[in-house]
């Protein structure tokens, strides 16, 4: 087994194990930290795929910014282990209604993905000529994809305004009685 294959299996194993633990954890803080570990492993995979730009923004943006936002919120809410004992005792497939449906759906999806991808054509080794240059990516982003890039700014503005609107406490002088009912 070559060193590349070794690295692939190591990073892949970490990513899968960490992701599994994220959804198996009862404490949200651990979940967030484990997800950061999973993102780190993915970043390693991006390096193997000759995509250093994505590898770096994966760490800076995803692990560094988005996950820290999650951590802040978890700590701000002092989010408890709020799941009931029931969840620990009962297997997901035996739980009521939508959860059982969801667990089955996920299982079917996993089988389906496996079936489709395993039967796909044999792809062989990656060809040479990977795009690793940040300059090439940047030029493409600001010319071919300039329109999408500009729309993204509106999307971020919407998210910003929305986060402020939803999370701020309204001025008590403005506050009125909640709607009847």
């Amino acid at each position, binding site marked *: 087994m070559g060193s590349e294959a070794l690295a692939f299996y190591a990073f892949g194993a970490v990513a899968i194990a960490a992701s599994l633990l994220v959804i198996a954890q009862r404490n*949200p803080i651990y979940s967030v930290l484990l997800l950061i570990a999973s993102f780190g492993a993915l970043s390693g995979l991006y390096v193997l795929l000759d995509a250093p730009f994505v590898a770096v923004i994966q760490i800076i943006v995803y692990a560094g910014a988005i996950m820290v936002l999650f951590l802040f919120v978890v700590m701000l809410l002092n989010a408890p282990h709020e799941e009931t004992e029931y969840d620990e005792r009962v297997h997901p497939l035996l739980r009521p209604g939508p959860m059982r449906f969801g667990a089955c759906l996920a299982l079917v999806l996993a089988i389906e993905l496996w079936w489709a991808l395993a039967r796909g054509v044999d792809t062989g080794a990656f060809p040479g000529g990977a795009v690793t240059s940040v300059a090439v990516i940047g030029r493409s982003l600001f010319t071919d994809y300039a329109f999408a890039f500009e729309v993204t700014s509106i999307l971020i503005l919407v998210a910003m305004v929305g986060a402020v609107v939803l999370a701020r406490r309204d001025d008590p002088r403005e506050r009125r009685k909640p709607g009847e009912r």
Partner: protein
Amino acid sequence: MVTLNHYLILSAILFAIGTAGVFVRRNLITILLSIEIMLNAVNLTFVAFGRALGSADGQIIVFFVMTVAAAEAAVGLAIVISLFRHKESLNPDSFASLKW
């Protein structure tokens, strides 16, 4: 030798884990984290295909997907905070006034 299919199967496994997490867990934060796992599986697929095609497009799409994920995370967490002020709970089952 590591081929495209290896990466695709890895991302499929991650995607299935994320999907399962959305349904199996009852903690809003964990559900959001599961959706992030799904989006990361998507990113891995894009980068792997981009590498196999020898084009920069795959990496550029990942850039946009990350932007979308950031915007969604910001709004989603704001919604969670605003709800938590009412409820002091993150369990979707505790929302009694609408049927889940």
